[in-house]
């Protein structure tokens, strides 16, 4: 429950961390004090609705955007002043894979590959072939799905220790999506690659994420292990007559037309649901990840 804590100090042991991150665009505040640190080797799924601030958070975490306040670090270095060694250990795939459209897929991989000491040219060539990407067609002329896959090959072939993917599956068909998830899980499992990926496809999270962070309206509402969510969070329903007894700390709160109240609540340190759940007529419903997302985001 990071958002409810005071801004934390930046975790210098984490491959990727931010503390007290704030940022605004002319039309309003996008990040409102985000603290987040990825554990080495973890696969963190960053989930949130469209416009929640996921892409802005990722860009700020990687030093591609100068935040209004707060600090981001990559492998212990300030993200805005990363050296070449830190950059060589990370790979990033942006949400819109539209860069360098004047190159062919082969040219792009050749170009980028020259900068990475650990570049796996064999993997790049083989994956290009396996994913049936026309190697000599200009990137500008490829379909969005094909371009996204070329960008994923670019990221994976650099053999990164930290892989950051911003909605990597958005333009992929189900087969390509499954292949991508398998590849990411493999990298995390076998090579210990730390992965941060943003998405709003809950099933992708359930498949590979070891941790989940939920960004809502610029705030990180929860950050926990993926397996814990079912145990840790639930929907508490209180009839109208008891709504006054609703706990103050709740991830979301929704009043129904009949006056009854639905809240998303969390177990306390002793593993207990809030006291109101023990009132007669109160009901605690288990929540799947998708239900939890919908309840909180609505």
């Amino acid at each position, binding site marked *: 429950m990071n958002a409810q804590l005071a801004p934390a100090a930046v975790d210098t042991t984490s491959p990727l961390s931010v503390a007290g991150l704030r940022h605004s665009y002319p039309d309003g505040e996008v990040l409102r004090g985000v603290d987040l640190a990825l554990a080495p080797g973890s696969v963190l799924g960053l989930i949130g609705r469209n416009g929640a601030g996921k892409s802005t958070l990722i860009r700020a975490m990687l030093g591609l955007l*100068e935040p209004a306040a707060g600090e981001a670090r990559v492998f212990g270095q300030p993200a805005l002043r990363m050296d070449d060694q830190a950059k060589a250990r990370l*790979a990033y795939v942006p949400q819109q894979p539209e860069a360098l459209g004047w190159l062919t897929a082969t040219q792009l991989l050749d170009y980028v590959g020259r900068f990475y000491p650990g570049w796996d040219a064999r993997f790049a060539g083989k994956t290009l072939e396996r994913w049936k990407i026309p190697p000599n067609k200009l990137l500008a002329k490829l379909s969005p799905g094909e371009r996204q896959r070329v960008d994923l090959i670019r990221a994976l072939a650099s053999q990164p220790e930290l892989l950051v993917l911003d909605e990597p599956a958005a333009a992929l068909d189900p087969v390509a999506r499954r292949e991508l998830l398998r590849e990411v899980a493999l990298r995390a499992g076998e090579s210990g690659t730390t992965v941060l990926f943003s998405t709003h496809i809950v099933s992708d999270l359930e498949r590979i994420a070891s941790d989940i962070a939920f960004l809502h309206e610029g705030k990180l509402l929860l950050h926990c292990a993926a397996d814990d969510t079912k145990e840790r969070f639930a929907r508490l329903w209180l009839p109208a007559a008891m709504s006054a007894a609703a706990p103050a700390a709740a991830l979301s709160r929704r009043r129904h037309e009949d006056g009854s109240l639905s809240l998303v609540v969390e177990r306390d340190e002793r593993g207990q649901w809030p006291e109101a759940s023990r009132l007669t007529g109160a009901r605690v419903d288990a929540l799947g990840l998708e239900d939890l997302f919908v309840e909180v985001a609505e």
Partner: protein
Amino acid sequence: MRPRDLLLTFWRATYPSVRWLVGGVFLLGLVVAIVVRLLWPGAKGGHIALLAFEAGVAYLWAFLMPAGLLLARDARQLRIPRLEVVAAAAVGLAALATIGIGAALGRATLGETSAAALTALVLAAGFAFSLLPGPVAMLIGLLPAASDAARRVLPVPTLDDPRSTIWWAVAAAGFGVICAIRWHGLVRLEASQAGRSSAMVMRMRGKNATGHWDGSGAGIRIVDRRRPGWLQPETNLRHIGPAHPVGSLRVALGRGFVPQTLRGLCRRGLTMAGPMLVFIVAMVLIRATRPGASVSWLGLIYALGIPMLAGLAFMLALGLPLVSALTVRQRWSTSQRELAVLGVLPGLGTPDRVRRALLRATLARPVVINLLLAVAGWIVAQRMNLSVIATLALVAAPLLCLLAGVALTLDALGRQPLPGWALGLVSGALTAVVLISTITGLLASQLQQDGPWAGSPVLWSAYLVVALALATVLGWITASGARGMARQPHPFLAHG
């Protein structure tokens, strides 16, 4: 629907930048026409006024009115009732309104009917330009020269001749039929085929939005995507990598910055030389068909060569820095594309090394070319024995362009770039100053120290004042951009 709402359709169906640019050009033509008409009574003033207005009409109908077609297409694709008819009606009403204004302006000189016919011809030709395939559309631009050439062999009447009206009306009707046929076909074109359509308006159009078609270079990515393979640049990756940061950055900057293979360079040269060849052929035709004229080929080469060299110098001096700076500005407008790759790319070195490499990659060519042009201008001035002030004009123009290239590039790389309107203002002033200098080059013989224009101190003083003011503004932009760039932790941070 009320006529006012119909006319506003175009305004609502285009991006603000497009409508202000095109609307501004049209209004400028109209204002010039009215002012000239008021200050310069008589036939000659009337003709100039009408031509200024017709230039605005051509621009309006080539770049704003095609939004009607895009709207009609969208309406059909999205199955929105009535909108397709509204778009067509708006085009019809706008045509009538334009012809009406033209007729009113030309009443005193050509007469209402003739002026209306001429306006109808210009607007139909402008509209056809946007609806026809690129190479055919380009030929429309040569029509005035072709008409002049045809006059030598065919009984084509001159502007004053009352028989012109029927010629213009027939030509306008012909273009009208072409427009109607193209409109019918393009509106019904399947979405899957739209990308391959060769019509200018479809090629330049934004992916999901109406109105990228403004002739100002917007929607470049779409053009990159739709450009045929043989016209695409052939990237040369020979000197790329951590040891070659300048070359590597040029690849990432795209467009004119990309190092090309020899074959790619030849292709590019040919595509640039193509329109020039068409121009040369047209000019040769005009000269060869002149009755009784003995064509002196040396004279022809001189007559064509000097304006072409001056035009080329103008394009190089002004175009290269502006296009380079605009490309940089476009790349730095979003952190989602090239900056997302460059910002985390290892091997480019420290931020200071990257800054230096970036400045070399973006500024080397505009700076070198403008320095060479300044030297060439000085040599021409010395050889022609031009007055001091005319020499200054010839040398100052490339130096101003050089300064503009540096200023606008640093501005684009800094924290807060100039707003679009300020950029337009600076570019407009620069274009005017450089245009005067180019004309100075063309009229060099008139500007000799004892020539008729040599001692025109008021004119030259005004020129110098504008040039100095512009240099001051550019100097300020340079300093501000350099400060902004230096303050950034690394140079790959997008604006906003």
